[in-house]
């Protein structure tokens, strides 16, 4: 039975910690005004760190439904809360180092960032349509603000505007789908909707609802054809925010996508531990095609990019395509593969963006051409970036390879060979553009020979991102076990 509101509070500590930190930041903003100081950043780190610890403590708590069935506390939610909190911590480090953000109000920035985090916490745990929509908007609205945080910069403003328009449209379509579901079943609770649909017959509104909801979530994870916003937003937004959007909200988008479709349009099969489709909507076929198209479009367009941020934007579209493969298989191993991939993706993608920030701080450029000779100008940063890029390509002994192996493995296990072949060929294409950056860094002579110094603190952070990228490529047993245990979703 779902817990009542008061009883739920003791299981809501991570969210409360983030909320308290947001309030403290508001106070800090009032007290400190727009002065430059490290206080908001450190406060955020402490708050998110505390939330991460509290989340870790929830790992061993038996699954519960909280707040009269609005929010779930299960392995799946705990995993995503930990993942997004970790991503936020890294992004705070990125933001502290970024010179784009220097000179702008610090406290406000972190208030928005932590609001997104709170939204992601709730989004990955929502089990009710209303809660789900609210938390989705809690993720989206501060994201719009963050994308436009470089006020006065044309690109940043354009990014934010585009983001708002696309986001609002997608939300509108999605909520239309929600209303259809409510109309058909008379409930807002995911579990109840799912049970009602599983017993009912296939109807056109049901199909429409599935497609419309897919639009909303597809937008969040930037799946083709709902990806149009992402390259412009990614290019225009401050780089730490680009990094954040490509990992945090994308992960939360996957969380809600999986939870929603696996609860509403499929029912768990107790005997095999897998899921069975509800009648009427074969959304797995739909998403399988979407997955193939997403990775192919992302990779093929990335080949033509000359701006590193844009290139990474398209590459992150492609990675969403890879992860979608795990989503269409209706098996715990498929979900496990997504979860594992998100972990390795967090380190390698944030790492790549971190180097982009460090380089841009000095060169004021994000053009690939300006990375020439980085191997001799900033060997440490260049080697780190090479590690992250090879990991993104999926070459052993880096962690990205293992992530791909698990995705491919489950696709092959389910016999969807065409998808495996498409994904494999996509890996080859992706090598071409990732290697282009590496080529420029190591194979070309620098135009400007001056050294780019990387101070000790960024070095340490880079190590913190590079070491897991290497280690998870050689020994990943604990992480895969953790992912395996996090597949459990509840739906009361």
């Amino acid at each position, binding site marked *: 039975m779902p817990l009542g509101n008061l009883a739920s509070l003791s299981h809501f500590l991570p969210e409360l910690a983030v909320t308290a930190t947001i309030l403290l930041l508001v106070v800090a903003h009032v007290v400190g005004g727009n002065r430059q100081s490290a206080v908001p950043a450190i406060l955020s780190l402490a708050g998110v760190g505390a939330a991460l610890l509290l989340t870790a403590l929830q790992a061993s708590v038996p699954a519960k439904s909280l707040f009269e069935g609005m929010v779930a506390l299960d392995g799946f939610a705990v995993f995503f809360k930990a993942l997004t909190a970790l991503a936020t911590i890294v992004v705070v480090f990125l933001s502290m180092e970024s010179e784009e953000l220097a000179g702008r109000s610090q406290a406000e920035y972190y208030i928005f960032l932590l609001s997104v985090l709170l939204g992601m916490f709730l989004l990955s745990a929502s089990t009710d349509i209303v809660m789900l929509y609210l938390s989705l908007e809690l993720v989206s609205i501060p994201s719009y603000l963050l994308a436009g945080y470089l006020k006065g910069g044309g690109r940043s403003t354009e990014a934010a505007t585009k983001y708002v328009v696309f986001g609002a449209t997608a939300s509108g379509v999605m909520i239309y789908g929600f209303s259809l579901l409510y109309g058909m079943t008379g409930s807002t609770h995911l579990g109840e909707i799912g049970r009602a649909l599983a017993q009912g017959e296939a109807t056109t509104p049901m199909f429409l609802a599935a497609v419309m909801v897919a639009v909303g979530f597809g937008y969040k994870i930037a799946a083709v054809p709902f990806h149009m916003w992402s390259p412009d937003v990614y290019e225009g937004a401050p780089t730490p925010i680009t990094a954040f959007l490509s990992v945090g909200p994308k992960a939360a988008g996957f969380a809600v996508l999986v939870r929603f479709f696996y609860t509403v349009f499929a029912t768990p099969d107790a005997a095999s531990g897998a899921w069975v489709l509800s009648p009427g909507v074969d959304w797995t076929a739909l998403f399988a095609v979407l997955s193939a198209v997403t990775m192919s479009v992302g990779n093929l367009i990335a080949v033509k990019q000359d701006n590193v941020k844009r290139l990474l934007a398209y590459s992150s579209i492609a990675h969403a395509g890879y992860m979608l493969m795990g989503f269409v298989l209706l098996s715990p191993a498929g979900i496990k593969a997504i979860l594992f991939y998100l972990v390795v993706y967090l380190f390698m993608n944030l790492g790549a963006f971190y180097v982009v920030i460090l380089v841009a701080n000095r060169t004021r450029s994000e053009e690939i051409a300006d990375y020439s000779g980085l191997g001799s100008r900033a060997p440490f940063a260049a080697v780190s970036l090479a590690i992250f890029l090879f990991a993104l390509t999926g070459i052993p002994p880096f962690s990205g390879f293992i992530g791909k192996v698990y995705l491919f493995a489950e696709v092959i296990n389910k016999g969807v060979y065409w998808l495996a072949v498409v994904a*494999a060929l996509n890996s080859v294409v992706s090598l071409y553009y990732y290697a282009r950056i590496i*080529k420029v860094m190591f194979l070309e002579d620098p135009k400007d020979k001056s050294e780019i110094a990387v101070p000790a603190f960024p070095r340490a952070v880079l190590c913190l991102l590079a070491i897991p990228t290497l280690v998870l490529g050689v020994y990943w047993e604990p992480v895969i076990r953790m992912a395996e245990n996090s597949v459990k979703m509840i739906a009361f």
Partner: protein
Amino acid sequence: MGFIDSHILSLMTFLPLLGGALILCLPKGTDNIVKIVAAVASFLPIPLAARLWVAFDRTVGGVNVANQFQFVEHYSWIPSINVEYFMGADGISLPMLLLTALVSFLAVIGSWGIKKQIKGYMALLLLLETGMMGVFASLDFFLFYVFWEVMLLPMYFLIGIWGGPRKEYAAIKFFLYTLFGSVLMLIVMLALYFNSVNPETGGHTFNMLHFMQQSAHNAWLKDFDVRILLFLGLFIGFAIKVPLFPFHTWLPDAHVEAPTAISVILAGILLKMGTYGLMRISFPIFPDVTVWFAVPMAILGVINIVYGALCAMAQSDLKKMVAYSSVSHMGFCLLGMAALTPAGMVGASFQMFSHGMITSMLFFLVGVVYDRAHHRDIDGFGGLGAVVPVYTFFVTVAFFASLGLPGFSGFVAEAMVFLGSFPVFRTIVIFAASGIIIVAAFHLWALQRVFLGPLNPKYAQLEEINAREIFCLAPLALLTLYFGVNPMPILNLMSTSLIKLVDVVKMVI
């Protein structure tokens, strides 16, 4: 000796990597120390290889029987999906391990003259050696795949940073081609994983030897059409590495642009991984398809022999000529293997070993003249025999070895290939024999244009080959000659396993 003996393959694999890591820790401006560390780290596998040579029991086969493998190391790596750290050697892999140890060390010595970023160069070269050793020592497919791919990164940088004018193009072409083959291999590996079981535990496995137990395959994997597709997936992956026509176009580019020592490793060892993969993985796992595919393989082999030789004849760049001659020689390996006779199989394996030494010599020699003249145009020399007699002597030895003159190991290998394959594919082999003539022709023609005739006055002061270069060449020349006269030591090493391999493949018909 206990620890060394029980971990000999791991030591051979990871000592170079350790040396590479050590090199990266050295401060700037210690180029000589870097070179010495690299030389030591790449030398250490040689005594270990000697130990393998002495201790190897030549009477047991291996191939698909776990307890017939020697120097085995078997540990659990990732228990949840049964990935194992499983290394071992048999007569198929042992000659390759010996070759890798020798050629890698010589390549380090041959790189002594590298000026640019020697630290990175040596570290990558040693990483490459680790990858190569690992490929030849692994018996777990996952482990094999990891080592197979690990080689790509250093190779990409070694060609891309230290290469010639079109190095970037050559490096990425090599990388893309090989990765294309690798991802196909990855899919096949995963398909094998899910459709076969470990007979002892009933769980899925990446152990190659379990894949070879046909009884461990499930119904899907017993379907012949499926087996053909999976075999072809692996075949393309390996064919790109060999490289077989029509997947060979990366090779001339990579060779021409790569620095000398890297060409040596590329031709001397990397190409052999393709044919080794066929012997180690494709043939025993899919024996029925192997028999079905034997004729196409033989035809591809002959196309390689003749086409490679004709291309070599048409080259004006000495290095490109040698590169195409590799394409031609690797064709013999394929022809011998496709015959599925003991003589053919042993011939193919011996050709891999012998060509590894001969082609290494050739690329070293091309490097010697390029270092001095700064070009490799065959027609741009003339009469060098009078100026640099010692160099001419070595080139003559290497060319004669390469064209298959009796007395050199190449002759023994090719003769065995013909002996083994003629009874099986008569017409095809007759075409292959014509390749021999072309091979002889372009070698002699090149020899004539470069070393005979009137002296080109530009090169009247050409510097003679130096001691370090002779140090790289002499062991190879002596071994080629020795195994040409007395091939039995090597043949004994490999024949038990290869005869068993033929039995394993033939058993199904």
